[in-house]
């Protein structure tokens, strides 16, 4: 048979001319003109989001626009843009957009190229406990309290103030981390920083060297109440006296039995001295 558009000889039964591409029986259109006439939907626009940093530097959704199949394959229904359906305007839920785009891939390509294109597997959205945002204020309060108690509490209450400050600070940090994870690092920074400062100050001002092996006291002796630190200092002096009594001990930490005997001896001496 012969093409009605260009007159070239084409095999019998073919639907399109192998020379000019015109469809047999339709002299005025070509394959590509048919394609252009189909309405092309808006491609899924890549969403620029400040929270996109939370997902690392690169993301395929941001850099490569979705190619609509209607550009090249006629007769395919256009895919509605999923960007308009995204209810989260601050685009914090970029993962949902990606998963919707990838399922758009699956819907469109599977009707044309069944089996020849493997859509990327739909990845789970990052775990972000949605109700954790309510922790924001408590976390900030805890952080500020831990700083206040670290400074004031250690002055007045010594080691105990520091321990409380550290406990509050740890609680505040855990809550602030949950806030930051659930809001993709938008909120909870203040609580995070305050809690860290509270813990550092609490450790610095009170526990301090007792974290290692110090027996000479803590830093609660700055202010009015130095009972605990004074006792610790006094205790070390007692150690040295006991060592002298025992006369040659290599350190009571090595031999508690010797300490027991030495302390009994010290008690006898103290009792014999009267009050």
């Amino acid at each position: 048979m012969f093409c009605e558009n260009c007159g070239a000889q084409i095999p019998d039964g073919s639907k399109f001319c192998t020379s000019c591409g015109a469809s047999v029986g339709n002299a005025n259109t070509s394959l590509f003109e048919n394609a252009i006439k189909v309405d092309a939907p808006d491609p899924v626009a890549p969403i620029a989001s400040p929270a996109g940093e939370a997902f690392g530097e690169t993301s395929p959704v941001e850099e490569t626009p979705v190619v609509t199949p209607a550009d090249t394959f006629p007769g395919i229904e256009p895919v509605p843009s999923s960007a308009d359906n995204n209810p989260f305007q601050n685009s914090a839920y970029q993962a949902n957009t990606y998963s919707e785009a990838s399922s758009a891939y699956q819907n469109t390509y599977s009707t044309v190229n069944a089996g020849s294109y493997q859509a990327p597997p739909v990845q789970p959205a990052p775990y972000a406990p949605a109700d954790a945002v309510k922790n924001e204020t408590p976390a900030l309060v805890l952080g500020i309290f831990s700083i206040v108690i670290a400074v004031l509490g250690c002055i007045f209450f010594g080691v105990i103030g520091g321990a409380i400050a550290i406990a509050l600070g740890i609680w505040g940090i855990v809550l602030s981390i949950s806030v930051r994870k659930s809001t993709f690092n938008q909120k909870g920074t203040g609580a995070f920083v305050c809690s860290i400062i509270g813990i550092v100050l609490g450790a610095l001002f009170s526990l301090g060297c007792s974290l290692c092996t110090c027996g000479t006291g803590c830093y609660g002796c700055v202010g009015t109440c130095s009972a605990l630190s004074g006792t610790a200092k006094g205790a070390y002096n007692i150690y040295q006296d006991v060592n002298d009594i025992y006369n040659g001990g290599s350190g009571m930490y090595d031999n508690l039995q010797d300490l027991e005997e030495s302390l009994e001896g010290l008690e006898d001496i103290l009792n014999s001295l009267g009050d």
Partner: protein
Amino acid sequence: MYPYIPIYKEIKIPCYTLCFFVGFVIAVCMAMKSINKLPPKDSQISFPNKYDVLFAAVYALIGLAAGAKIFFVLSRLPKVIAHPAAYKAMWNLSKAAALNYLFGGLVFYGGLLGAAVGTYIYCRQYKVLLEPIVKVTAPLIPFVHGFGRIGCFLGGCCYGIEYHGIFSVKYPFNEMVPKLNEVPRFPVQLLEAGLNFICTFVLLSLGKKMDSRRLLGSYLFYYSVTRFLLEYLRGDAERGVYSLFSTSQVISIILFPIAVFLIVGQRFGLKNAKKEKADYGP
């Protein structure tokens, strides 16, 4: 050496804590930078980003403090249980001294275990992949530990055996540890810090080829061997706790086969070694 940096009257910064925190902060910054260099092959949304590394480090720090303290208490508990009357006498004499005996110290191995538990809890709670975090932080463990050893040297709480040769160190008088000043000593803490920094460099180079499991196994292999040998150069160790070996040597003996298993385990069916390499990173 210089256990404290005095700031104002009685407020002093302990050098050990300061050195450790400086090392820790530097290590966390390095880890946060290098996590971005592990590009995920597919865009795995649960792949940790730099903030995940920061939060996991916070959890690890809490776990480290808790673990080190718990291990210390567990190491002192046998003595207290063996001599209850002596401990009661110490308690009556001075509650603070008795508390300090039982609670006033840290053990590195407990800290390491606690940090690992803290990181694991974070990854479970927020459903983040653990392997990339391990791959990034395993070379930095000896880095932080090296800083801690420098702090130990400055603090004077851990010191070496008596030694009169080259590089021997004469400590200034330290009221906490009177034995320190008596003789010149071998600077075993500085040696350990130097070895730790060399190990950091080696692990950072190996990390490009190895997966996280073998990287962690390499670190444990290095540390168990060196800690066991260097313990003989320490003058302050609690010998006699377990007849022949000190606490740290016993833990090193336990860790050594674990390290070997982590390194060669994939030949004996240890799962996921190949899958980790394929899933992400070069």
